[in-house]
């Protein structure tokens, strides 16, 4: 509940027409398609929603909340429950009125934008001047600002366009006390082109591999990097999602490669990346593609043992890549190298130019992540298991492990059968490091599926820790409490940062630095024993990490 007085102050901050506490309106924020484990229990409903239209309004709003002991949770494009409140005293700050692309600096390859600009919008503008933006795998409707400043950042194009957090330049940041902090060059009135300095870079507290998820304030403007786009100013496309048909630009090659086994595949992937060939590079399972593109067909295929063994056996080791070129010579070089590598490692390259309908359908999915919503088709819900991104080899190990764990749960009827092998893998910055997350699909109307979610979450987290990796769940308040002592007690540092940035505790820190006890007694005894073992083995002592 929000008091009338507090509500009035919110109205004063952003205008009465931009605040609401109508239950029906609030509930539109309280249902999220991702990480929502129970259709009966929606994510926590905010006590009000406010829509500021400027930095000054965000400041006034945050200050008003501080005065009334309320909290804020920012919402840029709100795709997934990460933008949802974690306690019942939170006002949702919906930033959709801040929707401008303020600048595209064509020469210096960056843009300045507001929170509600989405990836597709930015990409359309950037392509007009021969540039492109990194778009996360969550899709083109997501906010590039939210990912760069506050959330995660993996996408199909990471091989060429890096990770959202690494693409942040100058930024304007409303702190939890309502003051504005301008990062890097912006703070010194030198423009937007750099987010670091003078001296130590405050980007070090803005975020790590994950952002503070609104736990440290609200970003109102940010400059992010743009990248070369040698294609046309507009990729002509008709239709939506799987009905999309795009004109494939001349200087774009779209290939699938299959390798005889993991060893050859991995060697080839290292070489492809070392040769700096790719604009898009990814590895997904063929079964995964079918489950997304044709879920009904998938249900039939899973029973067909020959097809199944072909998809999970002979065709298991494959990768998809898009190459672009600014000149014929560049493309000739890239094509030749790819062929050489395929020859050396027994690979087969399928140039999808020969399969026009497929390439035309998938092109924008890769360039713009358009087809993401179809992951919900199979069962209505999906979730994912993410490890610490590091070498490609470790990511392949994670993918193999994912198949084993998932198959067990598929056999138990805990998740849907997508042939188990459903990794989403990309390489960052020409394989400086790699990414793998194991996706699984479930039906939230099926009680067995709902019951499997927590054990799966725990098991995948344990698998990550056993592999010396930080799990995705390091943002979960319960697992954070277990994992942080194995990683230099990072929560304590985050709590200290929160302490000095947010004396009044106005930010919702549930996904940033709060800790909650985890009752391991409820966990499967085998898993519990394994967990207790790693806790003992890996927890840091006064002397530091166990050596």
């Amino acid at each position: 509940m929000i008091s009338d007085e507090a509500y009035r102050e919110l109205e004063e901050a952003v205008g009465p027409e931009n605040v609401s506490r109508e239950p029906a309106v609030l509930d539109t924020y309280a249902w999220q398609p991702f990480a929502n484990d129970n259709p009966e229990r929606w994510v926590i409903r905010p006590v009000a929603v406010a829509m500021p239209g400027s930095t000054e309004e965000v400041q006034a709003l945050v200050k008003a909340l501080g005065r009334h002991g309320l909290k804020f949770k920012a919402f840029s494009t709100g795709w997934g429950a990460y933008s949802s409140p974690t306690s019942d005293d939170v006002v949702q700050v919906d930033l959709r009125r801040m929707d401008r692309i303020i600048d595209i600096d064509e020469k210096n390859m960056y843009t300045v934008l507001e929170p509600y600009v989405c990836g597709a919008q930015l990409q359309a503008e950037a392509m007009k001047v021969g540039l492109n933006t990194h778009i996360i795998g969550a899709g083109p409707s997501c906010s590039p600002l939210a990912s760069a400043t506050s959330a995660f950042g993996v996408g199909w194009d990471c091989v060429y366009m890096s990770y959202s957090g690494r693409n942040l330049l100058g930024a304007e940041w409303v702190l939890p006390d309502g003051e504005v902090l301008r990062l890097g060059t912006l703070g010194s009135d030198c423009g937007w082109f750099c987010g670091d300095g003078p001296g130590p870079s405050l980007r070090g507290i803005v975020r790590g591999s994950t952002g503070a998820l609104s736990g440290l304030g609200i970003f109102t403007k940010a400059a992010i990097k743009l990248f070369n786009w040698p294609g046309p100013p507009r990729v002509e496309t008709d239709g939506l999602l799987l009905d999309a048909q795009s004109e494939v630009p001349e200087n774009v090659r779209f290939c699938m490669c299959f390798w005889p086994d993991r060893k050859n595949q991995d060697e080839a992937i290292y070489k492809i990346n070392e040769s700096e060939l790719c604009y898009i590079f990814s590895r997904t399972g063929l079964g995964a593609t079918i489950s997304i593109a044709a879920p009904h067909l998938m249900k039939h295929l899973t029973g067909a043992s020959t097809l199944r063994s072909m998809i999970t056996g002979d065709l298991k080791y494959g990768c998809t890549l898009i190459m672009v070129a600014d000149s014929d010579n560049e493309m000739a070089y890239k094509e030749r190298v790819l062929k050489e590598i395929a020859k050396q490692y027994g690979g087969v390259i399928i140039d999808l130019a020969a399969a026009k309908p497929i390439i035309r359908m998938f092109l924008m999915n890769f360039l713009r992540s358009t087809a993401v919503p179809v992951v919900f088709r199979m069962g209505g819900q999906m979730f994912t298991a993410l490890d610490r991104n590091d070498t490609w080899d470790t990511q392949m190990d994670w993918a193999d492990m994912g198949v084993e764990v998932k198959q067990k749960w598929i056999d138990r009827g805990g998740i849907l059968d997508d042939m188990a092998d459903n990794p989403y893998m990309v390489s960052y910055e020409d394989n400086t490091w790699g990414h793998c997350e194991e996706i699984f699909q479930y039906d939230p109307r099926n009680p067995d599926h709902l019951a499997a979610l927590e054990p799966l979450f725990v098991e995948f987290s344990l698998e990550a820790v056993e592999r010396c990796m930080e799990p995705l769940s390091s943002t979960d308040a319960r697992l954070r409490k277990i994992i942080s002592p194995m990683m230099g007690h990072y929560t304590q540092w985050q709590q200290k940062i929160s302490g000095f940035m947010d004396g009044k505790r106005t930010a919702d820190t549930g996904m940033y630095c709060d800790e909650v006890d985890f009752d391991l007694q409820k966990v499967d005894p085998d898993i519990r024993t394994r967990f207790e073992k790693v806790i003992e083995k890996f927890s840091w002592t006064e002397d530091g990490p166990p050596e």
Partner: protein
Amino acid sequence: MTVGEIQDVREKFEGTAGPGSVSDDSEALSWYASAGLAEGGKPLFRVAPTDATQVRELVKLARKTGINLVFSSSGPPRFRGDTVPSGEAVIVDMSAMNKVLRVDRRNKMALIEPGVTFSQLKAVAEKAGLRPLMPLLPRLTKSVIASYLEREPITVPKYHWDMTDPLLCTELIFGTGDLFRTGSAAGPGSLKEQWEKGLAQKNPMGPAQTDFARIVQGSQGTMAAVTWATVKLEIKPTIHRLYFIPAEKLSKLVEFSYPAMRRKLADEFFIVSAFALATMIASNPDEIKAIAAKQAPYTLAYGVTGGEYVPEQRVEWQEKDLGELAQAAGVKSTREVPGSSARQMLETISNPSAEPYFKTRAKGSFLDIFFLTTLDKAQSFIDTMRDVASRNGYPVEELGVYIQPIQHGRSCHLEFNIYFNPQDAEDSSRAKALFDEASKALLEAGAFFSRPYGLWADLAYARCPDTVKALKKIKEMLDPEDILNRGKLCFKEVG
């Protein structure tokens, strides 16, 4: 401190870092008493730890005694003054921690200690078919970790994706005495266990929702000591060619640079003025003057490389495309400039500077002014600098200009070198006056002093009070007793 107190502290430090680890050799200490324009430091003694445990104990000891610690990893000579203590301090000389602990060819990385120099890393990397990413002609004694922590720009902008590059993961000892590891090195598990699982400490971000390596980078030793770090290495090319583009006008080179860097066509990529180029080529003042007189006002150098597969074809593609871009910009590449072939220059820039250090060759000493900007603004800063130089009676044709694009060319490090004769009082004071006046004028004109040494700290921080406020809080968290390089940056008085 009284002599007795110093003796007492000295014994404690020696007790911590082991017999023979402490020295008060006056010559060695004098290296820290002044550097560049910084002077007046009072190094009490020097302690040389050999491992992270000792470093940690030294920090804890400093917390107890309140003594100021100045960490230093490179050998002399020093130029920027960041290791000249404000008042009394113990110098923690990390140069004895100089092991390359791991080189991983497959994952193109090395794990190194702070005392490792570029020549050392280069030798080890090359054996594995790799090469380090280097700043332009670092001095022979320069620590790789120190260089990367200072955000010295590397000469290959296409491998500079983000400001932290080529630094990856680090082990830190904060001023609190706490040990912390960043990036994927943070764990869980020891380094050995992580290696056994196939990890190579290649992901620089994190752990979790922090990135303390970014806080420590650029902090001039005021936040933490780094006891090891992993760094990116790149493949050693099978073909490597360098080209020059001499030009009368910088604008032509800028016109060429933007599309070339956008397409990541070249490896090495930088622009130097005639005089700066001559200091890289020649070894004595007369020769430098003579060679500089023959150069075009600006020269751009770029490298093209071929790797494991069809290297000739790769090089041909790059050469041809870069050639077309050059033509479009109205410039032409060559394989020779007066005094140096491209091959010789490639050899030069693939190594640390030969002795004497190249910036000292023209007149014995130098002062650098450097900051970040974007390429399209470089000319207007050069105009400002030239104005101030001529007002101060400095011959503008003898100004060094070095433009190093960074972050794929999104911005650049712009550096001016003021050369002077340290034996000549008039020349020295003219150089100093020019340095002061030009620093202020450039700041006024919008220069971003992202690495604010000495005088620049006050100037740069006066412009960003909100940044200062946040930095002070972080300093208080990581170094509550203010024992790490006291008085530097914006931490003149903490709290």
